[in-house]
């Protein structure tokens, strides 16, 4: 298809879809409206289970099955990336050149690294209380480790990052989520049921299984993102085709 035909088809389809969406927008309830039946029920249920952060209650208790799917998507895409970016037969690894980074940047990176890891852990730990949770904190922890690549060089990062162990930890965290779900079936009433005591409202141990599932997700996400970035970094920095110098 030539570019012109494509643009023509695109114009027809885009105009139609635009008209449809705009018409739908004017039929939507007013922005900021007061009709949220499901939302109101969720807030009540969350308070009844002593979970201060309602979003955490939705993610790890009321709609925990969605989070199971989400976690599996992350797990699958990491596994998929590992498979897709594997080292093929005509490729070899070249040791990356040591790089020198300006002192202020280096200092900044090394200083911020522990702060960022701590912040990430804090965000995970307070997931059921304040905004944040396993997903957000996990990404922060994983990103923080890559400050070593930015501030020092790739070899420094490789030293603290045995990718294999992170892969195993990723899988273990994912299975921990599943096992907790099955424990709900055995000990409680249903798969992913919240079978632990709900604790005191607005404390770290409140919410029953919510903090546990949250922690499993935090670990899973942190490890998954590390493995994901490791594969891309390998491609960008180390892996070369045979014949390239």
């Amino acid at each position, binding site marked *: 298809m030539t570019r012109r035909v494509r643009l023509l088809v695109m114009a027809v389809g885009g105009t139609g879809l635009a008209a449809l969406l705009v018409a739908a927008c004017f039929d939507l309830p007013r*922005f900021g409206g007061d009709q949220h039946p499901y939302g109101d029920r969720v807030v009540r249920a969350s308070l009844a289970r002593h979970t201060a952060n309602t979003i955490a209650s939705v993610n790890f208790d009321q709609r925990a099955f969605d989070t199971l799917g989400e976690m599996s998507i992350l797990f699958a895409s990491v596994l998929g990336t590992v498979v897709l970016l594997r080292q093929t037969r005509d490729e070899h690894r070249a040791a990356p050149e040591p790089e020198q980074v300006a002192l202020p940047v280096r200092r900044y990176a090394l200083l911020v690294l522990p702060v960022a890891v701590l912040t990430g852990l804090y965000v995970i730990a307070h997931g059921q209380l304040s*905004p944040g*949770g396993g997903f957000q904190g996990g*990404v922060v922890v994983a*990103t923080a480790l890559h400050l070593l690549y930015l501030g020092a060089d790739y070899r420094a990062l490789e030293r603290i990052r045995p990718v294999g162990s992170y892969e195993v930890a990723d899988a273990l965290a994912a299975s921990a989520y599943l096992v907790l779900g099955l424990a709900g079936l055995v000990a409680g009433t249903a798969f992913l049921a919240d079978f632990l005591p709900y604790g005191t409202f607005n404390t770290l141990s409140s919410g029953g299984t919510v903090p546990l599932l949250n922690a499993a997700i935090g670990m899973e996400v942190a490890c998954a993102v590390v493995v994901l*970035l490791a594969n891309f970094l390998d491609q*960008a920095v180390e892996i070369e085709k045979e014949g390239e110098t």
Partner: protein
Amino acid sequence: MDDPLIVVALLLVAGSATAAVAVRDPARQALVLAVLGTVLAVLFTVLQAPDVALSQLAVGSALTPLLIMLSVRKVRRPKRREETER
């Protein structure tokens, strides 16, 4: 809808999304996407969704740009070599 804050945040999102599409060079697009991520996080805060804003910040401000920039670097690298060989 009388909250100017929401209007401003929405317009910023619309503007940076349009820019992210209009900028055709992937490295420069990654810069715009990083800004889009930040602006989206601000919009989510204004819409009272701090949890989503946090994850958008975590993903949009460092992770996605890093992934895209690493891909750009990998894609560009062989070309560089050819040019120097010529």
